């Protein structure tokens, strides 16, 4: 029986893979069916997951097992219910309060962490002696890091017209930005091809058995 379901799973996977790939030729009913099944399954999965893996272990179980020690969990529960009021137009305004609590708390928690990790530590990592390096490649890399950071920041300084030295620095900054966007695009292309490789490894390996899965 287990073997039957494994084989059925592989065949379903194959059918859905081809249905999705068929969109590359042109939009068609097979693609639409596969897309809608995927969306429906995802929504159903997450609905069940939220109830059984978030609401029950984090709210229902603690409250039913030891209410006195966990009554404070009622506060987020009430805020969650208030958030759902958004679905009723007449009392939609109620949902603004839990949203403000979420935004306020998130800002407070994230501010310090981001300030340390993304601002202070990044700045410290850039404040290096560029000429200390094992090889000339590292030294050039260090210099590029410093020049790129400074010029990149200058490009986003809009309080003064970009002319003269400021203009030249901003121009260098934009070149660094363009190169970084190009590198990011390269990584994205690699990631997308990796996904195709994953699908083909499934088709050629698990389904056809031509290659080792």
């Amino acid at each position, binding site marked *: 029986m287990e073997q039957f379901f494994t084989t059925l799973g592989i065949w379903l996977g194959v059918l859905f893979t081809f249905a999705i790939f068929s969109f590359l030729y042109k939009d068609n009913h097979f693609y639409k069916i596969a897309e809608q099944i995927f969306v429906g399954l995802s929504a159903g999965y997450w609905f069940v*997951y939220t109830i059984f893996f978030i609401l029950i272990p984090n709210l229902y179980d603690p409250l039913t097992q030891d209410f006195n020690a966990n009554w404070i969990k009622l506060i987020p529960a009430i805020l969650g219910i208030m958030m759902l009021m958004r679905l009723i137009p007449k009392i939609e305004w109620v949902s603004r309060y839990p949203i403000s609590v979420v935004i306020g708390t998130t800002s407070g928690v994230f501010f310090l962490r981001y300030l340390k990790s993304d601002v202070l530590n990044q700045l410290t990592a850039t404040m290096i002696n560029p000429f200390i390096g094992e090889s000339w490649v590292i030294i050039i890399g260090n210099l590029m890091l410093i020049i790129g950071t400074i010029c990149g920041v200058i490009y986003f300084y809009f309080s003064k017209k970009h002319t003269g030295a400021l203009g030249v620095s901003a121009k260098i900054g934009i070149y660094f930005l363009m190169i970084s966007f190009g590198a990011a695009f390269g*990584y994205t292309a690699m990631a997308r091809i990796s996904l195709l490789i*994953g699908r*083909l490894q499934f088709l050629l390996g698990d389904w056809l058995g031509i*290659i080792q899965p």
Partner: protein
Amino acid sequence: MGKAKQIDRRWIFLLIFIGVALPLIFTIGLPLETTKNVQMVYDMVESMPKGSKALISFDYDPASMPELHPMAKALLKHCFDKDINLIFTAMWPMGVQMAEDIMAQLQDDYPDLKYGEDYVNLGFKAGGMVTIQSMGKNFREIFPKDMNGNDIDELPIMDGINNFNNIGFIFSLSAGAPGIKEWVQIAHDAYGRPTSGGCTGVSAPAMLPYVNEQQQLTGLLAGLKAAAEYEILIKTPGTAISGMDAQSIAHLIIIIFIAIGNINYWRNKKAEKKGGK
């Protein structure tokens, strides 16, 4: 540009499909060099004493399996070969299954591994950064039980693990948020623990700045290429290496089409200028 001069994009799709499929069937074995970031991860694992403990967070789902599964497998193999005990956790719900799947694949290679002694799966916990922060204060508050419902005080691997202090290193296999960024912000920047990660190619440019002088990240495995490099380092070829031939051919096809597109563009521009005169 006249429409008649444009290549039907479906030819490009077909060529990419063939370009990826053929190298998977007929291996070419194109050379691959190890990069510094991958070497740093390898060296970090190598430097861990026998019996030390590492925390591996599976922060991805099946959508990112082709990129992250090979590197997860290679990393876990390396850790088990070095007798490093592994504590699995997940900041993504499906991460739990990802860890389970890798362990099922490794079962034949490591039949003597004992659950609860050599490795443990603590499961998923919602909350991202807040959860990680609480783990840094008290593990048991967040994970009183493992994913099978066992009390973690009864598991030998969790002896002496109350927070991040006795963890040798932390490694996040990440496809987005919560993931590497959150682990860096808390585990490294707040608690000072060596932290590293593996991510998808798409998120690599956002993660690379953390590999810096401050060692916010100790190396980074970015995308399938890094997974292939790691497989080379541990001398265990896997699906990442076999995928790299296909990756290279696909990139070559993309580069050729970019060149053709640009040449076509300049030719048309020249023709338009001539026509204008």
